[in-house]
């Protein structure tokens, strides 16, 4: 009986995660279209409801209609593509995007006492697919790096110059932003002392201080980098539909295109989960969810709700950002990665490491608690480095040599001369 449960538990979790993610991805597309429409003073999709009736349900049938449309498309493979790689690329992208969720906690734990005693469950059930994986976040980053292959291979296998350009730009962007992404989390790993995402949440819940409060600079770097990794505006250079006809997936259609699109959405969901888990306290909310491992079932439910609400808030922020700022130029994109975000990430790392090493004696000497000292150091580092970046402004006019920038190159009496 116990062995059967042991097998059933991960299978059930996988079913819930895959089903939940696919449904969430479909409905997030609808949410994104609504958000886009509302921000442009339109109403958005609101017609598709229950088929063959006049019931509209605010357009909630739209994702199902879209999915059916994708599935019913003719499965056509162009003559000029590299067939094996053409098929492999979206699969890589989709599988890595899904597999990354194996180590993402969807809540805290299910207490064992809500099951009948005859089931023999003694341990609390952790709400993640692979709770025993100690390398959690490294596993996620490894999969995220493999996802770049999906983009590059898709662009290459399509044998089309637009796709190729899209793949090229995308690979450079994704590889560049891996660095600030990594630097952003190193501070969190130092502070919490674990690679496991549930342990990172547990540490934030135990101290009651979310990592965004002590490492605002790390949050900034990680947030910008995860926007770029998920290829969301203002960093959506891989697709840049106005310039590249859709980028690396120009040649794709039907179910293969759907895999790409779903994977892109899942990247955004992953980024939102990571931001919430690493920096925004995961399932923790002061005075509401408690902090310990031993919970009653209402608290367990509350933790799931709090976590998912935070993730939804982050996703809405992603969608809001999409329409708030124009896309960066390619050289600006690279400048932001190499000249701004990587140095800022290093500054954050140094500050966190110093606080970890010397924070306690320093705090005792100053007469405040260690958390307050870390928060003060973190916010000071944010303000100071932001000020330095603003003063130096490494991204301005970066595509021209300094002596040809307008201020220097234009003679004072240019109007008279021309």
């Amino acid at each position, binding site marked *: 009986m116990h062995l059967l449960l042991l097998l059933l538990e991960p299978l059930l979790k996988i079913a819930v995660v895959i089903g939940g993610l696919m449904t969430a991805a479909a409905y997030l597309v609808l949410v994104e279209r609504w958000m886009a429409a509302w921000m442009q003073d339109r109403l958005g999709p609101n017609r598709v409801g229950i088929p063959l009736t006049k019931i509209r349900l605010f357009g909630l049938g739209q994702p199902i209609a879209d999915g059916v449309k994708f599935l019913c498309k003719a499965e056509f493979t162009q003559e000029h593509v590299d067939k094996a790689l053409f098929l492999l690329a979206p699969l890589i992208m989709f599988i890595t995007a899904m597999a990354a969720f194996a180590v993402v906690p969807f809540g805290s734990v299910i207490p064992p006492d809500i099951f009948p005693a005859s089931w023999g469950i003694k341990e609390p059930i952790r709400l993640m697919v692979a709770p025993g994986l100690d390398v959690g976040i490294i596993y996620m980053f490894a999969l995220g790096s493999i996802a770049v292959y999906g983009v590059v291979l898709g662009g290459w296998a399509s044998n089309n110059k637009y796709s190729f350009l899209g793949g090229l730009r995308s690979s450079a962007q994704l590889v560049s932003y891996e660095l600030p992404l990594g630097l952003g989390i190193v501070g969190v790993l130092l502070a919490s002392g674990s690679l496991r995402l549930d342990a990172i949440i547990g540490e934030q819940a135990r101290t009651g201080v979310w990592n965004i409060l002590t490492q605002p600079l790390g949050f900034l770097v990680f947030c910008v980098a995860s926007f770029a990794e998920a290829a969301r505006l203002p960093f959506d250079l891989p697709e840049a539909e106005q310039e590249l006809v859709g980028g690396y997936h120009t040649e794709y259609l039907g179910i293969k295109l759907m895999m790409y699109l779903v994977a892109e959405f899942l990247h955004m969901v992953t980024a939102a989960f990571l931001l919430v888990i690493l920096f925004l306290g995961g399932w923790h909310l002061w005075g509401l969810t408690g902090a310990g491992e031993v919970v009653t079932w209402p608290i367990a439910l509350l933790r799931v709700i709090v976590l998912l609400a935070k993730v939804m808030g982050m996703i809405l922020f992603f969608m809001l950002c999409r329409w708030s700022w124009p896309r960066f130029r390619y050289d600006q994109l690279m400048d932001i990665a190499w000249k701004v975000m990587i140095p800022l990430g290093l500054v954050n790392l140094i500050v966190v490491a110093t606080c970890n090493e010397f924070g306690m004696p320093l705090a005792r000497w100053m007469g405040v608690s260690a958390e307050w000292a870390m928060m003060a150091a973190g916010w000071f580092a944010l303000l100071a480095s932001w000020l330095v970046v603003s003063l130096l402004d490494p991204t301005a006019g970066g595509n021209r*040599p300094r002596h*040809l920038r*307008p201020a220097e190159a234009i003679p004072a009496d240019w109007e008279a001369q021309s």
Partner: protein
Amino acid sequence: MTANDPNTRQNPHDLPPTGESAAKGPAAAGKKIAWVREPELGMAGRSYLMLFLQGLRTTLRHLLSRKTTVQSPEQRHVVPDPLIYRGVHRLNRDAQGRVKCVACFLCATACPAHCIDIVPAESPWPDRQKYPQSFTIDELRCIFCGMCEEACPVQAIELTSLYDLSGKSREEMVFDKAKLLSVFDQTKDAEPMTKGTGTFFGLPVSNEGTPGPAEK
């Protein structure tokens, strides 16, 4: 043309400016170039903070604003001024119910899309020489520019405010004289004919009597 000319340099990164070219600037090459100064960013612009907040404020304001969508089949778009709207054409009738057109071909000549086809015939009425035996407009070719309406000396062709033009075949969308006259019958109450007066080959025309050159 020197090696330092900014317009001919291969790689400007490699070549620092000499004092001469920096002083004279691009105009030294003898080219008439109008330089546009990029606005200098202040601290607020360089820190991206104000731009960040401005972007968010704009989208958030629109997120909550009143929506302008017209839910088309149930709600109808209200044309603000039907008399100046450029929708489906109509052929106007005069007081006796005859077609006003004198088959002068001015509209067909003015039409940039060449969608008007007129077959003239000798007029059965004494007040004009010609009338259109057939008058067809290919509504699919039409670009709704309104130049036919402007060219017409007798206010016989006008654009109405009917905008939801649709059909099931291309043939159906070629409107003949009867159809164009029926559009007039349909819209004449809501959109009265233009009370314009003008001249046609030096002769005064008005909306009241049937205009046109006098009979020989």
